[in-house]
């Protein structure tokens, strides 16, 4: 599984990345974290607000820093 963090490097993006890492760790997932920083790639993914979170290239949330619990439930939905 690949988890994408979309964002140009604002403090919120860093926070989301940290929470996503934590969520994947707590679930014991073997996930690879991928940071998408290039503005063209962010827009190409259909994102208007950063930070955004993607799972295997599919955007699952944008414009907010989700809590670890929320990321966990999103990841669990995707692994089913």
């Amino acid at each position, binding site marked *: 599984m690949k988890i994408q963090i979309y964002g140009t490097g604002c403090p*919120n993006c860093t926070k989301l990345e940290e929470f996503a890492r934590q969520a994947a760790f707590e679930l014991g997932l073997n996930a690879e974290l991928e940071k998408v920083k290039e*503005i063209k790639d962010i827009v190409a993914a259909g994102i208007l607000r950063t930070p955004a979170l993607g799972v295997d290239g599919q955007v699952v949330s944008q414009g907010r820093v989700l809590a670890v619990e929320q990321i966990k439930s999103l990841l669990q939905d995707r692994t089913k």
Partner: protein
Amino acid sequence: MWQQIVDWLVYAQLGLPRESHFAQAFNFFVYDTVKVLFLLSVIIFLISILRTYLPPEKTKKFLSHKRTFIGNVMAAVVGIVTPFCSCSAVPLFIGFVEAGVPLGVTFSFLVSSPMINEVALVMLLGMFGWKVALIYIGSGLVIAILAGMAIGRLKLEKWVEGFVYKVKSAQTFEETWTPRERVRYGYDYMQGILKKVYLFVILGIGVGGFIHGYVPQDFLVRYAGPENHFAVPLAVLIGIPLYSNAAGMIPVVQALLGKGMALGTSLAFMMAVTSASFPEMVILRKVLRVPLLVVFFSILTVGIIMVGYLFNAFF
């Protein structure tokens, strides 16, 4: 109701004499802090919930290929409830342009979203009353609409960085919300804002309380009253760099208003604080060439100054 509770606390319980400067300043401080923090919590919570119904993804769709004026008005109105994070300005801008939202309409949104700031709005409501809060929204809307229409009319598309028009975006992701998630989002957002601004609010009200109690009446009439014609541009120039401290500035401005600063000057100052900011300009430079940035910035500054004069003339 709050005033009576605070009076009782300050005068009866703490035994401070009613006529002392210190007691007056302290009373003002406690009263305003309680009231403003309460209003901030309730209103930000409600606005955030409303906002989950109106994400920019939807805005983009209905603004696409809208005509001048109608499009500008709609963009400015939606901008009120949309929160503005300067780190999202670039993807938002590209996404709008890519979806066929006209440049001028996009700018109306980009002006109104940061200018009509919900924290500033609540502070105004709490400290000046609903009339001034409405005036603030109204003049913000007018500036956003006119600035967008001017930029649209000037046909400045050539000053947008070329790559913006080449980007092809995927289907925009739209979230689905359960009622529970909306409430949770509202609560989280409110908590985040409060954490960010409460110190500024308390500090600002503290300084305001000091001015209220110690600075003589009409102290500022000479410098910032309606007779001084340079007060408005000066206030705007001071306000522009003060971006992040809107929450703290408003209580101070309110106290200054009581000491003779004119309403238009105060309003212009607050708008300059919440809207035109240098960090935002630096970020927008990624998609806009310098001449367009200069035009944008100038229209905004002139618009704010005009609102200031207008209010000084009528109030």
